[in-house]
């Protein structure tokens, strides 16, 4: 007659723990592993031109809106046209190898295929201009672009992350003249004052973003 060896009793005794642990493991993996915080944050594709925001926005201190000039009046912040690059690079670093793609584009009229970093699902409609008008600064969503050699995604850009701010906007609101200030420190007290002054109440309706 077959008897289970005595050590199998350990399995019996720990089975509950194993199953429970397994479930917990799956739950943790799914929750954190599939979270946009894991999958999306830190996405840093290689761009066709080794453009450095750290130099342009950081060292040189060029305002964001010099290149992303539609951001205050349109939904898209718009990648600048090649002609914008050539405003300066027609005169400086005219022979740089790194800028070959830019010069080619300018001469041929073909677009530079910049790789999209911040990408929302197509059923989510985000508008830059209205956020700027409300006093949400660039760095609130994009992070310290002025420190990035190559741009990467700083925030998860998930719906929960959006709603965090829509539900609790105070810390993220700043005066209109500080929108592009990369060194801005969040100030919830000032934010609350600005919100009240300007009558801003972020919407949490589905149709605000989904149409």
């Amino acid at each position, binding site marked *: 007659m077959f008897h289970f060896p005595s050590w199998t009793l350990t399995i019996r005794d720990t089975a509950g723990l194993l199953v429970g642990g397994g479930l917990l493991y799956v739950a943790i993996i799914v929750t954190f592993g599939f979270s*946009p915080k894991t*999958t*999306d944050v830190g*996405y840093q*594709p290689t761009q066709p031109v080794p453009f450095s925001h750290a130099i342009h926005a950081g060292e040189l201190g060029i305002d964001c809106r010099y290149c992303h000039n*539609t951001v*205050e*009046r*349109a*939904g*898209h912040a*718009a*990648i*600048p*046209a*090649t*002609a914008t690059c050539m405003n300066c690079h027609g005169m400086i670093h005219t022979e740089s190898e790194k800028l070959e793609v830019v010069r080619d*584009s*300018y001469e*041929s*009229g*073909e*677009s*530079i*295929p*910049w*790789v*999209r970093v911040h*990408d929302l*699902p*197509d*059923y989510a*409609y985000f*508008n830059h*201009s*209205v956020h*700027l*008008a*409300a006093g949400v600064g660039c760095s609130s969503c994009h992070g310290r672009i002025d420190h990035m050699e190559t741009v990467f995604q700083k925030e998860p850009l998930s719906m929960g992350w959006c709603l965090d701010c829509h539900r609790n906007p105070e810390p993220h609101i700043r005066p209109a003249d500080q929108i592009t200030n990369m060194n801005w420190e969040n100030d919830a007290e000032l934010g609350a004052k600005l919100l009240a002054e*300007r*009558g*801003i*109440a972020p*919407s*949490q*309706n*589905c*149709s*605000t973003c*989904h*149409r």
Partner: protein
Amino acid sequence: MTDSQIKYWRSLDELAQSEDFKQALDREFPEGADSVEGVDRRRFLQVMGASVGLASASSCRWEKTTLEPFAERPENRVPGVPNHYATSMEIGGVAEPLVLTSYDGRPVKVEGNELHPESLGAASTFAQAAILELYDPDRSTNPTEGGAARTTEQFEAALGAVRASHAAKRGAGLAFLSRVTNSPAIAEAQRRLKSDLPQAEWFEYEALQRDGEIEGARMAFGRPVRTHFDLSKANRIACFDADLLGDHPGSTRMTRAFSLRRRPEGGSYDGVNFEGAEFDSANLDGATVMNRLYVVEARHTTTGASADHRLPLRAEQVGAALAALEAALVAKGLAVPEAWGSASPAPTGTLFGQDSRARAFVNALADDLYRHRGTCVVAVGGTQPRGVHALAHRINALLGNVGKTVLYTDEPNAERTSSEESIETLVEHMNGNQIETLVVLDGNPIYDAPKGLDFGSALGRVKNSIHIGLYRNETARVCGWHAPLAHFLESWGDALAWDGSYCVVQPLIRPIFAGRSALEVTSFFATGSWSDAQELARAGCTARLGALSDKQWQLALHDGMASGTASVPVTPAPQRVSALSYSGAQVDAAMPANGALELVLYGDPCVHDGRFGNNAWLQELPEFMTKLTWDNAALMSPATTDALGVTTGDMVTLTISGRTLDTVVYAMPGQAAGSVALALGYGRTGAGAVGGDSEKGVPAAGFDAYALTSSRATGHETGLTVSAIGRTYPLAMTADHHLIDTTGMNERDGEWLDPSQSYPDKTFEMEGADGEMTAVALTTPTLVRAYNKKAREGSRVAELVRSATHSEFEGYLEGVADDGGRESVVDKLHAGHGEDVLTTQDAHADDAAHAEDEHGDDHGDGHGHGPHYVDPNKIKRIGGPELLSLWERHSYDGHRWGMSIDLSSCVGCNACVVACQSENNIPVVGKEQVLRGREMHWLRIDRYFSGDPESPKVVNQPVGCIQCEDAPCEQVCPVAATVHSDEGLNDMVYNRCIGTRYCSNNCPIKVRRFNYFNYHRDLKGGDRDLEKMSFNPEVTVRARGVMEKCTYCVQRIQAKKIVAKVDDRRPIRDGEIVTACQQTCPADAIRFGDLADESSVVSKAHASERSYDLLKFLNIRPRTAYLARITNPNPLLVEA
């Protein structure tokens, strides 16, 4: 029958309570609606392409997408921000002024040009659907020679050789066949053609022409003048087979003017009447505020559906009715001046016999017109013979309307011969071997030329036949050469609007398939080289208006027109018009025997003459009266079908003048007895994968009515024989789709008792005056009256559609003024009005009979205290218990969006349906799916008939989501995919929807649509990039298994809110946000705005005495209020 006793029905099946109807009613969707069989047969191959990478881009981070900016961004071009450009579309020689919305260089939406008085922002269904046509993958992509593909260079070389050979002969043997055009640029190119190749011939043909009108003017005035009606000044309008609000080229403008005069408030809802003066509601004068429309016609047109009085007469009898009208006017003392000839004798015969309906109609009309001399209009339709038109000119002159409500301008091209004559001469010349080369510019004569001419065999005698068109259509397939034509949205050109003003055609996009426009081709033949198209257009402008400076030209391009260039009214001198006399035999009223029936061929309101046959939006658009999609049918009145022993869906053979056509019968209420109407434009065999293509094996949609034509396409002819074949044919009609449910229908029908029967006495427990309960026994007459009153009052349809006469409405307002009378008048207006006054005992019985009755009426709220939601918990319901809700009321701090739809103004033109489809990326599903009740239109127009099926009255009711406060859909969604926004919208979150369809099941209005298939993706694969271009990027493209519905164009709301916020957080102005349906409504029947703003037009409309909610008793409290239809019948004319 008075209006308030109306029983409304949507179809004859419903009227007869047939088994089919009951089944349709019982089921949420028709049987088999959720099965997948028949997928392969479906014709949604052409339905627009795959969703814009929805699946791939949604969550998958690692798929690399690129952003490709301009190397140099054009001025005023902001990525993602739409630009608007003005252009125009020419149909039948008349321009429709348009404004196009273009996203990133991609035109996506057509709207009317607000600057132009002929549009005022409204656009026809044809123009709006041009977007789908532009991106149609079936469009011709390259030249062909004998069916074999050729390059553009080869074609142009061949064209050059042809031109050179004819240039040597001064153009002899060269002929052009164009559509009727009044483009000054083409006229200028033609002039140059004439000077270089003087012997070349130019023919213009249009199957749906208005030649009768032009010939009639020639007859009356000796020259072709164009007649304009100023309906804003017309108090009385009489249309004789004239569809002024439908197929008339000036219909958009006339509909606006007409509708303004259909509101008893006199214009808007803001207390200002149509003349801009303050409106005095206490002193309503129906005679001057509302117009009155009389229509005499054979088939039900848009105009007929809006009429106060409509007399269905066979088209051949319409002239007799006009002659009778003239005789009646003369009898009233109007004298026909010498210059106009002698008056028409009154027609004899039973039709206009002493006690006949036609006689009464004509007399009442004559009386009314006589009283309104100088402020009335008599109009005759384009397909009536010229003598009838001449007579109408004379009657307008007699009534003193000329120069006031009836204006004349010169026709732009006085020398043009009629289409009928033109095509006949061309065929004659081809048969006489006089034509060596025929260039067909954007036409399809093989399909739409009268079959009696046998255009095909004549074309066979032509050595070089060249077809230039949008599609490789029937004609292209028999021509030697074919080349693609540039779409009007890809071309430079110009055209003249109906008022004669100069309109610009400018390209929105470079030709997708390297086509050339008709203007360029004409100019090529004139000069031998391809010229700059903009310069050609400008040459036309110079010829028409004189040289414009660059700045003026830029302004014209910006405005889409040169303002102030409308034709100047002329006063043509009359000629003697011979009197029309009709003998009794000609106009006998009785139904003619089979074989002597009348056939009326008319242009289809959806696909026109067939040129839009491959446009899926238009094919699937339910025809406004029959609610047919994807088909035409032989329309006959119920009396005619009874006499012939056929019914809707039966196949029959129509035979006239030796020509036959097998088609399907449709029993059409309101069609004149003995008249059979069949729409042209169907049965295409060379349209494409949508409309039918014999080469690809796609069966034709509908039946080719041109097969029955002998010398002209439209008009009427007698001698029709109808014989049943013994087969049936499935018709995809939406009249009985989206019905209200059984409970409602039972309630609606109540328990009707037959007054001629006797019933056992019934005893009720009644509370007497002393508070004691006593038993009261009711005997038959009282019982019948009480039950029938309850049945009427419980009528649920009265909760859906309401209409009253002007005098009833006046009485109602008087009752309101006298506060105590309000309740009774409300009752009268909406329920048991017209009923005998009940005795005390009757009244008790009445109470007993509907102890639980909830004859919901909402005129209680809204009156005198602003917008609806004053005290949401206490919606006043007169005569019923207070409505209580289990749900906590929503509260609103900001906007409360609302809509009002005025049934008095709506003419049912369908423009809003196409606007909605275009704006919201709504898919087309194909005939088989429509048969299953799966059509996707978010906005439908419910068409209700009432009264005698031979001459019913019509109410049109556009129904989209009414955005209930306590929305039944929200309460049952298990995943919160439909939720209430804090601005009162029922938001639809497509990405949350899991497709349970509970919401649709629970929707009492049936406005939700389910994606049974991935309609936007071609199941068979393939490259759908072209069709993708037609999508509105502001609206999500829904995938399979998702429920969708109207959201008040929430993307437009958000866009304006963002603009206002960015613009220093200014408040949104009333009227700033317009929904797509509202924007294009020619009748201005739809208003949208903020109910929180008491001064908004929509608040005022909601506060109107006419305002009511759908299915009020359900306590769903919709945000869309309807305004009851008020008609203005002639008191003299009590219709049977």
